[in-house]
């Protein structure tokens, strides 16, 4: 859709609209404030607030802020949040009031936690569905592999989330590809979420405050990726006292320092993490090594009740070295400046300026190659949350990103290499969006979330772009029955910032929740998403050879439509919760590679891609036990993800004869059982059981002899599967002095990854045995049993 709506005109109209509403509500007073954790002063996200006399319920936003408008009078406020003691207070309102609350953690106490029955049960009433919120407390109870609790490993246990394979970075949501996930760290986009073959994530759990995964029903303030949004917020740092938190493990260690700069006004947090296995390996004369490090920094200054400024930075790097003949390094750098401003007590705004730089480099001695690629982006966002009335909250804002892609700087590996230096054409683009959405409570039983996002993408110069005969970068060779790269007929030179291609899309979003009663609800949602930047990868897993590429006249933006329907039930006083959801997705402009596509050093990606479509559907179920000595969940997903790449005309077969084939990351069954058991104040245990259907693979259905070499002949694309993936992880945490709250508090963590040492297949390779010459199927697996010990300390 190429509708020309000026985003800024839209925004101006919204401001007008908002002011009209605002002047109307002068009879009442506002009650607003921030809710924090008393012990570490961190603001809390998604805290439930209920005012029974006015029958009003709400939650704090991502900065811990809440606001409501009430007639003057006396009210009871009930505040509840999982892992914390409830607060119940009486308040008399005679004028606009600012009231902050500090909540006390109850995670150390055992026994059942009683939740009052007249709280709002936000997961039942809110139209939010297809989302999973994981508190850092829950993540910390799960088995810590290699001594580190891991954010990404935890979300893999949620329904609808799988990973391509062991050792691969990234994750897949509801049959979506790795590049379909918008991963945000304090609002900055993260391109590669893994360290060390996907074993660790780039998120240091000590610094994380909260995270939320949206698999569907994605609200209008998010856009740019079609599959999911993983929204992660870092802590601000304790603004009252200094604290140090650290851990020493076999493979890696970490250290966090936080504290006030100006008490109650300003705080900082600095956390570093690094691995040193490579040093041990060097001592053992092992020629291979791998190491990573990362640094999270955040600083905030609260000017007054209405203004708060944050500066955060993340720097991380990975270094994989195989015998000095294959070296892979990559890293993310993020820098983020944010300003929260509260207009007249009921309009909360956040302005962000973000710089992100993702670079990756491979050096291959045997090919004499040193290849580096980079993605830089400059991002500005301005988001508003306008609490118009107790039944209506408006969200609106704008988002602009400027991209600078370097697909490859090629250099010789060393002086003896035959490779010539080359620079692939850099690519530039500008992505803009404006949105408005409303969260509206229509009645006691019915709530709606609806909105519209308009996104616009411009591919810009300076760049020389190839032209092709009939505008076809891929041609079909009828004689050989294969697709080939077309020879360009010429080039067009676009000057700096000249428009090469432009796209605009309207993305409607809608979610409805209907409460059958206090404990049960039915929800439905529809969303349309568009994605303008793509990860070009020839394998099913995200590997170092992935190239981020922007859309252009040949590589069209992907457009997704998703509908979902769900049933939610809390029972036994919120002790258990059940979520059942079904979804259906359709994707337009899903590209796939022609057979034999070679991506390394390719300047014209369009010459190896064919346009197609995708679809996915499934059923997800999750049963959670929220309270008690034993907590955890069972999640099961049954799903199917497919792709189809038909021929462009009657003479061409397309890929797989134009029929639907399994998508690379399609997995039929995904079962996950997670449990945490607090035996006593000193000992607690955790376990995870994971079972996933084997990854889709293409197997040979024959072989032949050619020029004295055995050549495998492959069958239907993705027509087979690897063996099923399953493993059990266990961990035990020993706290010698559980009652000690001040001074040095230590804790031992013992964990075993892959308890029964199953050699899960990462891939199969088909070739002849080196000694006997017989044809074999060889299975490559990455991690067997990995035990680990970590000593964690805080003071």
């Amino acid at each position, binding site marked *: 859709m190429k509708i020309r709506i000026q985003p800024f005109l839209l925004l101006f109209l919204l401001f007008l609209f908002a002011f009209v509403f605002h002047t109307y509500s002068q009879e009442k007073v506002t009650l607003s404030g921030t809710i924090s954790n008393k012990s570490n002063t961190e603001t809390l996200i998604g805290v439930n607030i209920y005012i029974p006399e006015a029958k009003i319920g709400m939650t704090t936003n991502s900065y811990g802020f809440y606001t409501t408008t009430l007639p003057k009078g006396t009210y009871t406020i009930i505040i509840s949040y999982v892992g914390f003691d409830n607060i119940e207070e009486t308040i008399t309102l005679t004028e606009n009031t600012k009231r902050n609350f500090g909540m006390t953690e109850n995670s150390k106490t055992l026994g059942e936690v009683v939740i009052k029955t007249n709280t709002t049960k936000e997961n039942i009433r809110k139209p939010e569905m297809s989302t999973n919120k994981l508190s850092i407390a829950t993540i910390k109870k799960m088995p810590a592999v290699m001594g580190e609790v891991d954010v990404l490993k935890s979300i893999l246990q949620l329904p609808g989330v799988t990973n391509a394979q062991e050792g691969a970075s990234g994750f897949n949501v509801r049959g979506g590809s790795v590049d379909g996930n918008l991963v945000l760290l304090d609002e900055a986009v993260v391109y590669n979420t893994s360290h060390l073959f996907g074993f660790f994530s780039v998120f240091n759990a000590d610094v994380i405050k909260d995270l939320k995964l949206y698999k569907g029903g994605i609200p209008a303030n998010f856009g740019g990726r079609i599959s999911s949004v993983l929204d992660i917020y870092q802590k601000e740092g304790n603004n009252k006292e200094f604290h140090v938190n650290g851990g020493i493990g076999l493979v890696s260690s970490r250290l966090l320092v936080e504290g006030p700069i100006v008490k109650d006004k300003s705080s900082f947090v600095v956390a570093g993490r690094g691995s040193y296995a490579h040093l041990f390996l060097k001592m053992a004369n092992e020629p291979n090594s791998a190491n990573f490090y990362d640094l999270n920094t955040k600083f905030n200054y609260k000017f007054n009740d209405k203004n708060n400024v944050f500066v955060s930075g993340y720097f991380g790097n990975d270094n994989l070295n195989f015998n000095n003949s294959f070296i892979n390094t990559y890293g993310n750098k993020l820098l983020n400046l944010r300003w929260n401003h509260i207009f007249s007590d009921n309009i909360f705004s956040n302005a962000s300026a973000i710089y992100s730089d993702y670079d990756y480099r491979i050096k291959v001695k045997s090919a004499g190659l040193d290849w580096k690629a980079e993605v830089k982006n400059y991002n500005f966002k301005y988001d508003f949350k306008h609490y118009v009335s107790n039944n209506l909250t408006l969200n609106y804002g704008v988002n602009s990103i400027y991209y600078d892609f370097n697909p490859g700087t090629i250099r010789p590996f060393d002086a003896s290499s035959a490779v010539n230096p080359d620079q692939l054409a850099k690519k530039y683009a500008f992505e803009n969006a404006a949105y408005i959405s409303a969260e509206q409570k229509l009645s006691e039983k019915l709530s709606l979330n609806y909105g519209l996002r308009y996104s616009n993408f411009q591919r810009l110069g300076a760049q020389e772009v190839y032209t092709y005969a009939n505008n076809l970068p891929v041609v079909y060779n009828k004689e050989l029955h294969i697709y080939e790269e077309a020879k360009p007929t010429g080039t067009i030179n676009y000057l700096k910032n000249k428009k090469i291609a432009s796209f605009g899309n309207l993305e409607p979003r809608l979610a409805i929740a209907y409460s059958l009663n206090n404990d049960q609800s039915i929800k439905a949602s529809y969303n349309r998403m568009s994605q303008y930047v793509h990860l070009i990868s020839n394998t099913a897993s995200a590997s170092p050879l992935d190239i981020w590429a922007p859309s252009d006249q040949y590589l069209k933006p992907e457009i997704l439509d998703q509908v979902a329907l769900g049933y939610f039930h809390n029972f036994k006083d919120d002790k258990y919760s059940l979520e059942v959801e079904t979804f259906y997705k359709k994707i337009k402009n899903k590209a796939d590679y022609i057979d034999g596509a070679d991506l390394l050093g390719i300047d014209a990606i369009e010459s190896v891609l064919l346009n197609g479509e995708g679809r996915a559907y499934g059923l997800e179920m999750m049963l959670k036990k929220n309270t008690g000595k034993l907590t955890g969940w069972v999640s099961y997903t049954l799903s199917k993800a497919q792709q189809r790449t038909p021929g462009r005309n009657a003479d061409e077969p397309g890929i797989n004869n134009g029929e639907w084939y399994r998508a690379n990351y399609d997995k039929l069954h995904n079962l996950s059982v997670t449990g945490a058991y607090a035996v006593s104040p000193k000992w607690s245990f955790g376990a995870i059981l994971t079972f996933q259907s084997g990854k889709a693979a293409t197997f040979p259905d024959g072989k032949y002899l050619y020029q004295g070499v055995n050549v495998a002949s492959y069958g239907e694309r993705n027509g087979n599967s690897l063996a099923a993936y399953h493993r059990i992880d266990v961990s035990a945490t020993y706290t010698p002095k559980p009652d000690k709250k001040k001074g040095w508090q230590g804790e031992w963590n013992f964990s075993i990854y892959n308890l029964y040492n199953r050699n899960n297949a990462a891939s199969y390779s088909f070739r002849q045995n080196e000694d006997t010459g017989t044809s074999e199927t060889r299975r*490559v*697996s990455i991690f067997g049993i990995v035990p680990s*010990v970590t000593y964690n300390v805080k003071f």
Partner: protein
Amino acid sequence: MKLLQKFIILTIGLSVALFVTGCEKAINVPLKTASPRLVIDASIDWVKNTAGNEQKIVLSTTTGYYSSEFPSVSGAVVTVTNPSNTVFNFVETPGTGQYVCHNFLPVIGQAYNLKIVLNGETYTASETFTPVPKIGIILIRTTKEVKWVMKLK
């Protein structure tokens, strides 16, 4: 505490060793076999300092991936034609699937056409006879020494 120490030492050793070591093993995975397809292995090679008149084309079919035999194909009529329409016949050594020609005339730069007729189907291909670039020296180096030097004329 002693037990703890032992556990730690054990895990240090294991973790470090296991960490960067992947594992590769041959496994038994049953594979389907598609219906056999004709494989034509035709390469006209002219070895330096020979007449180049002995040439061989091998016909076989695809076979099951784990099979140890490649079935040969007999009864095909194999011919190669040069631009002056001289036909070179390739005759099968009975039962081997190898079709041999003793009187081939290789000329660099000429275009040759291959034609195979088998069971009512005709297969054709054409190629230009290209020379191999002259190789002067091949050096194979291991670590810092030069192990092999081959000089070719």
